[in-house]
């Protein structure tokens, strides 16, 4: 019961802010440790791939970015929906904070995917790769959310209207994913190497999982960092903020 109550108390901005202050450094440090360890494992310890040689090592930055991008969109839509339905301001603040981070990681997934593609397919961009096209559309969904928010002046309205866009987007994500997959199987030539088929052994997989966790924790840190700023701004007329400033001044 205590845990539930603590969780509920997080929805209150002052509680959240103080909790975030304390949690932040732990997230930052552990994410860096995980990422460095995973990357070391991926670059040094993992054996070269049978087909792609050392080129496959890009997987250790491409896949975690793609994963975080997708996670980010789900978190965005979920937070926006919670904010819309239950009118929790903090939830909208979460959505605002997630959007730019999600867009960055999706962009990174696209870029690393394209770089990976060059030696494997011979070209930087391959329209026939379902994953790249899907990532591109996901990036547009993030950008659409951010543009819509920016276009609406009233913050409450912006929160709620963009929440609807995010909800519609998230329903579309599996549809878009399926349709692009289906479309790409029709157009895939025989020369296109399937990127996800380096027969992945355990010593290749473990570093990948470590980097994925590291990226996820890093994502959490970034969002919480932005969230602190967002909450401060939204709550600037509240007393707890003045108290906080007084504390900091000491």
């Amino acid at each position: 019961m205590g845990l539930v109550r603590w969780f509920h108390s997080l929805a209150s901005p002052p509680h959240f802010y103080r909790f975030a202050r304390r949690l932040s450094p732990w997230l930052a440090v552990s994410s860096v440790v995980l990422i460095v360890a995973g990357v070391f494992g991926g670059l040094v310890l993992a054996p070269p791939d049978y087909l792609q040689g050392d080129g496959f090592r890009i997987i250790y930055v491409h896949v975690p970015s793609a994963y975080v991008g997708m996670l980010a969109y789900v978190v965005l839509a979920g937070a926006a929906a919670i904010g819309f339905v239950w009118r929790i301001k903090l939830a909208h603040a979460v959505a605002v904070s997630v959007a730019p981070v999600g867009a960055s990681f999706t962009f990174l997934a696209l870029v690393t995917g394209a770089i990976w593609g060059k030696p494997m397919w011979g070209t930087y961009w391959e329209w026939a790769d379902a994953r790249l096209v899907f990532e591109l559309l996901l990036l547009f969904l993030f950008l659409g959310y951010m543009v819509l928010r920016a276009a609406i002046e009233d913050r409450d309205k912006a929160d709620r209207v963009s929440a609807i866009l995010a909800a519609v987007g998230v329903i579309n994500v599996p549809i878009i994913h399926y349709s692009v997959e289906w479309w790409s199987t029709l157009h895939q030539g025989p020369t296109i190497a399937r990127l996800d088929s380096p027969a992945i052994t355990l010593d290749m997989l473990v570093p990948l999982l470590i980097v994925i966790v590291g990226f996820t924790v890093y994502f959490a840190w970034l969002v919480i960092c932005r969230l602190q700023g967002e909450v401060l701004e939204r709550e600037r007329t509240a007393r707890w903020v003045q108290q906080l400033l007084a504390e900091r001044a000491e």
Partner: protein
Amino acid sequence: MDVFLLILRRDLKIAFRRWGELATPLIFFVIVASLFPLALSPEEAQLRASGTGFLWIAALLSSLLALDGLFRNDLQDGSMEQLALSPAPLALIVLAKTLAHWLVSGVPLLVLAPFLALSFYLPVEALPTLVGALALATPTLSVLAALGAALTVSVRGGGAIIGLLVLPLTAPVLIFGARATDLAVHGESTLGPLYLLAALAVLALSLGPLACAAALRVGLE
């Protein structure tokens, strides 16, 4: 049901009075489709290979344009607020308005498309599928465009960003529609993509108006 028919008839009447607004998306459709050969090449082989794509993209963009002012006119003269206050579900009203717009912009598209298709050297046998696929796809496109209009109803000059918001969501429609047409051009069975288009239309028509209504209520505050 009465409300639905009432709004439908009202919007149709208004649309016919403003025939300029009616004609614009259709002219736009023809112009966009015609620009592709100018940008690429007028050779028969090229056109036959890519004509399907040109048609579908032109249809997509024209649908977006057609529903741009769906709510703006009502918003400006104050009738939007009256509609929102009425006891009838706003989603139903939105559905009626969207249907009215589809009747005046989507259906003429179905008439024009075959002519453009023939100009791109697409075989006559493919035309029924093209029209059928467009008939299934344009309602979905109309709903998505309506959603874009509803989301930007409180944004000054909102029309500009509707495309950015809505076009990524139309990708599946484009994929299945163009695929159906391509299959027909090659004389193969088109049932798969057509079923998928129908499924998307059902999904869009059932959930879309609800999202539009929610967005309108927020925008009107």
